[in-house]
């Protein structure tokens, strides 16, 4: 009996070791690109060409970061990422606010003020979550041209807001269905109307999903490339487009440290959000599994 227990315990310990071993191995693999990006971005170019890929830098230098931020060339100009970083901020913030606000109202109507056909409308909106944008790029370009918004930041804000509504509506709809209808009834008896109930009762209760929606939209819009490349030109490009241009410029010796610094700069805002509010980020991801 005793030996049995001992062998059982040994087996258990080996099992745990295997589990932890595999997990840590995978973690190393997932961290490797980040490690390589960071270390490369603070190495001298000579050190990189001398063959240091994975190792620690012999000497840390932030020259590459400075270059990437304010000097790197993207084929037309050599002003670094800074102006495009600002573009992305100017475009992301209003688009996030507008799409989240509209999604909140839509979700509220669809769950708490159902009317014949409101479910069909929700179904129509939902397909927008999974639209391959290639199917609408051409008409959108034409329409933006007609509106006089072609190639401009406001045009891109409009595009992101419009195609963000589907997802934000889904978020809020799934959140609001779990709030009991009796709450709305109680408020009606208290004399509150459509708008009052939304502002005083639903919105304050929806704080978590507002955060989820904002984070999701922020990540989506900041990371977008297709719309940015299709609907903006030159000066107005968002950061992803500028990054790709900088990396693909082929003049002289390739400056890998600058590429990596630029990639890090483009990644930092979303990484920051992920580190600060990862829990909400995950909720946004799994909301794609529609259920509700």
């Amino acid at each position, binding site marked *: 009996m005793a030996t049995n227990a001992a062998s059982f315990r040994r087996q258990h310990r080996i099992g745990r070791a295997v589990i932890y071993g595999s997990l840590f191995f995978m973690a190393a693999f997932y961290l490797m690109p980040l490690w390589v990006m960071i270390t490369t971005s603070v190495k001298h170019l000579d050190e990189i060409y001398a063959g240091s890929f994975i190792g620690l830098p012999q000497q840390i230098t932030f020259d590459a970061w400075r270059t990437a931020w304010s000097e790197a060339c993207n084929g037309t100009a050599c002003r670094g990422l800074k102006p495009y970083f600002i573009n992305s901020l100017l475009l992301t913030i209003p688009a996030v606010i507008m799409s989240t606000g509209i999604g909140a109202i839509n979700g509220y109507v669809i769950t708490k003020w159902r009317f014949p056909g409101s479910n069909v409308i929700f179904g*129509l909106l939902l397909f927008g979550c999974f639209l*391959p944008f*290639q199917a609408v790029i051409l008409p959108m370009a034409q329409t933006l041209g007609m509106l006089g918004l072609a190639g401009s930041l406001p045009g891109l804000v409009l595009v992101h807001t419009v195609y963000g509504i589907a997802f934000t509506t889904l978020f809020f709809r799934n959140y609001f269905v779990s709030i009991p209808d009796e709450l709305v009834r109680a408020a009606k008896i208290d004399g509150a109307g459509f708008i009052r109930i939304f502002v005083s009762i639903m919105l304050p209760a929806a704080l978590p999903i507002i955060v989820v929606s904002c984070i999701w939209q922020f990540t989506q819009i900041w990371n977008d490339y297709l719309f940015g490349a299709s609907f903006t030109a030159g000066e107005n490009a968002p950061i992803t487009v500028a990054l790709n241009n900088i*990396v693909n410029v082929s003049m002289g010796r390739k400056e890998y440290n600058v590429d990596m610094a630029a990639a890090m700069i483009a990644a930092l805002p979303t990484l920051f959000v992920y580190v600060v509010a990862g829990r909400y980020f995950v909720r946004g991801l799994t909301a794609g599994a529609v259920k509700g």
Partner: protein
Amino acid sequence: MSRSTPLSNRIENWLPRLVLAPSLLVVLVAVYLFICWTGWISLSSSMIVPKYDFVGLNQYVRLWSTPRWHTAVFNLFVFSTLFLALTTGLGLLMAILLDQKIRVEGTLRAIFLYPMALSFIVTGTAWKWILNPALGVQKVVNDLGWTSFVFDWIAQPTFAIYCVVIAAVWQSTGFAMAIFLAGLRGIDNSVIKAAQIEGASLPRIYRTIVVPMLRPAFLSVIVLLSYIAIKSFDLILALTNTGPGSATEMPSTFMYSATFRRDQMGVGAASAMMMLMTVAAIIVPYLYSELKESRDGH
């Protein structure tokens, strides 16, 4: 039975509809009308600018007789198959391992998931550097003493697509893991305990009881990953720029370059419609079943 309702009541009754109307209008235009518009262009002879004539299915015929499109479709097939299999498999494995009461679960989960926060452009840039044969992984292994080691897929037309797979799997596994983990956490513990009392081993319990119970999670993961696969565009541009040659062309990149670079707007629109139909064939039944289920659940 008709009574005169006070005006304020009537406005209140119509307000919800009024509020939803702009969104509905915008979506009807920007999604459905635009799809029809693209469909129309795909039936026209548009080249540089849209022309609204009608040439039947000519553009589709042209599309399907373009070797580059064949490459794109073939690549999409190879890419999606591998991407789906690897991401789902790895994601499930991670989720199961993480579900074993791991002490640093939170940290590990964060590590597996952070790539999802990155832009595909960033991912592509990073992996391009890692997979670079002259200075990247190959060089590291060579320097360690294995001088004959070769890992130059990214420069090989037949293998470059696998590089895209590697980067895409790296980026998306965390997503599959998150959904599987949520599924695992939703399973009633007593089922597993009951099986343990019967004397079943842990791997067996997972194989025969737990994994089959994850069916809804599998459905979500596979559908959503297929969607990611079909529309993947930025990753290709940043990692291989559809090269070497056009070895890593995909429908999404094909559509973009046909339309904006090669002045074949009609062909581009036709390829967009092909993509749309593929996505719709996967997503519409999925949405339908999800919504129907949630309604039945009430």
